[in-house]
């Protein structure tokens, strides 16, 4: 049933490219190089058509345009399958299980990568992986199996003409700011109904502030600790109470309305990441400056930065396709066109040492600078049990936002119960 939702890719047709742009007649088999990827992109060798499936809706159009450019420059074809957003992991699993998996796909660092690791091809010897920034590669033991999309960060994205970061530094000032906006008839802050934007990202902060987030999550999975008994979470619940009391019900807000209201100045702050600039850009000149500041839980003064997704190659694909996939990734990360697309079109903050990031958008700039200075908290949510945000935490959060009488303590108890269910 799931497979029907996205375009199915057939890799059978291998029609010759019409424009080989002045290259000599194809001399296939002239150089059967041992290296799996053609290091010289000028090789006229025709590679097998590959398919690509990835989770980020924001780059879908740019990626398709890039695939066309790739075909123009090299004559090789990449078929980009439609993005699936929230349902990505389930669709990917359905396709892989059915043996119709894509050649290249994306996985999130952490639990998701762990789940799909039996499909990862070993990329350790590929030329492009040498440029991955330290500690950023996706690894399975010693093998490098994935290349990061880039780094991303989230926090409170705010309207500089409405909010001064000095007024949002702890629970008290945060609540006061929200109350002030409510009195003025404006939205102080907006979450939105999508699972990650409703609870997934915002709950990352109390996890990331633990001394050892991964250890804390492991203990939580075993039931040795409870959110309800942990200081940071107790304060988190108070933040959520303040948000519920003073801002519109996020259950009625979608991602695009959330960003639309922010862009038109109706909302002063949104809990979002640098990716949301992609939507803001469509509004042209906003008439005000925007920035990103930390979610001030327990005096937190750092934004959350991590690698959201990695490119991996499906090891179960045909060897010729794997070869073609490596050639594509190599082109993406080493050619001028590919590097430019990563920064300018995808708007990624590069996690590669050979890609310079200049003229980033204002939100990415904040993340880039935070990454360079190390003023970041990690993405603990990558280590949450698979699917828990969508399946368990989101319903608990929905219940909290729908029931105005639920206390923060009750909310934490529900989250603990939801966690126990999801960690089974």
């Amino acid at each position, binding site marked *: 049933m799931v497979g029907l939702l996205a375009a199915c890719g057939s890799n059978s047709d291998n029609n010759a490219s019409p424009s080989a742009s002045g290259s000599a007649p194809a001399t296939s088999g002239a150089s059967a190089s041992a290296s799996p990827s053609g290091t010289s992109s000028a090789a006229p060798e025709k590679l097998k058509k590959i398919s690509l499936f990835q989770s980020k809706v924001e780059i879908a159009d740019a990626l398709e345009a890039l695939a066309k450019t790739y075909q123009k420059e090299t004559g090789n074809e990449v078929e980009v399958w439609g993005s699936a957003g929230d349902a990505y992991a389930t669709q990917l699993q359905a396709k892989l299980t059915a043996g119709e998996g894509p050649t290249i796909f994306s996985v999130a660092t952490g639990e998701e990568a762990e789940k799909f690791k039996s499909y990862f091809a070993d990329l350790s010897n590929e030329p492009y992986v040498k440029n991955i920034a330290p500690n950023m590669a996706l690894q399975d033991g010693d093998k490098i199996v994935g290349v990061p999309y880039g780094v991303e960060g989230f926090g409170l994205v705010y309207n500089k003409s409405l909010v001064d970061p000095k007024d949002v530094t702890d629970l008290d000032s945060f609540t006061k700011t929200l109350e002030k906006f409510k009195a003025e008839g404006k939205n102080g802050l907006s979450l939105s109904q999508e699972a990650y934007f409703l609870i997934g990202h915002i709950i990352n902060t109390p996890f990331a502030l633990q001394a050892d987030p991964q250890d804390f999550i492991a203990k939580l999975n075993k039931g040795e600790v409870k959110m309800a008994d942990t200081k940071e979470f107790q304060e988190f619940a108070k933040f959520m109470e303040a948000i519920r009391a003073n801002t519109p019900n996020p259950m009625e807000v979608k991602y695009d309305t959330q960003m639309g209201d922010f862009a038109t100045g109706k909302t002063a702050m949104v809990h979002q990441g640098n990716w949301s600039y992609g939507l803001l850009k469509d509004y042209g000149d906003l008439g005000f400056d925007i920035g990103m500041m930390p979610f001030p839980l327990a005096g937190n003064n750092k934004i959350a930065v991590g690698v959201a997704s990695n490119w991996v190659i499906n090891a179960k694909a045909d060897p010729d396709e794997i070869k073609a996939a490596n050639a594509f990734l190599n082109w993406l990360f080493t050619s001028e066109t590919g590097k430019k697309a990563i920064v300018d079109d995808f708007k990624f903050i590069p996690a590669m040492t050979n890609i310079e990031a200049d003229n980033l958008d204002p939100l990415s700039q904040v993340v880039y600078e935070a990454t360079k200075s190390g003023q970041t908290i990690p993405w603990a949510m990558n280590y949450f049990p698979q699917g828990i945000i969508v399946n368990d935490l989101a319903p608990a959060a929905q219940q909290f936002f729908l029931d105005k009488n639920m206390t923060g303590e009750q909310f934490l108890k529900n989250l603990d119960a939801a966690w126990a*269910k999801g960690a089974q």
Partner: protein
Amino acid sequence: MSTRYRKERAWYALFTLPLLIIFTTVVIIPFLIGIGYSFVSWDGIPANPKVFVGFDNYVALFKDERFLSSAWHTIEFTVLSLLLVNVLGLVFSLLVTQKLRGSNVARTMFFMPNLIGGLILGYIWQFVFTDAFKTVGERTGLDAVFFNWLIHPQSALYATVIVFAWQMAGYTMIIYIAGLQSIPDELNEAAKVDGAGRWHRLTKIVFPLLMPSFTICLFLTLSNAFKMFDVNLSLTKGGPNNATELFAMNIYNEIFGYGHYGLGQAKAIVFFLLVAAVTLTQVIITKRREVQL
């Protein structure tokens, strides 16, 4: 004699075998494999091990509160849809078989929603229930009725029923029309001459003779309502707080959300038995009430 018999057999086989093969490969075999999966613990990834656990999955699913509450939502949904779909379908069919102007147009209009896929229908109605309802409520002050139906657990379920009825009513209407048209005019006319009123003719003549249509329509509505997934997915995704998570979606979430392939399969088997039992009972009961001319 025997050659003719053999020849007939050959023809018979020629026409049924292809269908039999298709049916076996796409229904019977997957079904049997599915039964097998319901006894293992597995995350659905082919490379990972399948561990035999016996009836553990079946024991676990009866302790799964989310599954049980989704069972209750499904029953609630099915009963409401059954009533709404068939009442609407019957009323529509009676309306468009009166010799009124525009009844052909009306017939097409009533059937139209059935031609739109459930997914798209869900997204259209999502807009109606969230944005349109809210705006109407704000403009007219009737916000007791017109609010965002999808964020309230109970009203979200009713919203799902409405969309399903909107989709199915036209279809049952067609079946009822066929039933109505097969009732000979003489019977109605004779009753009229005998002095039977509209209501009497409807309940004493039309309904009993319409019983075969009732059997089909109730069966279709019942089994479709139980199995409903597409509208559920696009309209509410099972939310808020899983209040509209129906059977099919619960199974989907168990398998693809949690990666509990075996448990999900066990649920699917239980689900199958339930749907089969309920629909068979219904067919037997309504069949018994059918009258022959």
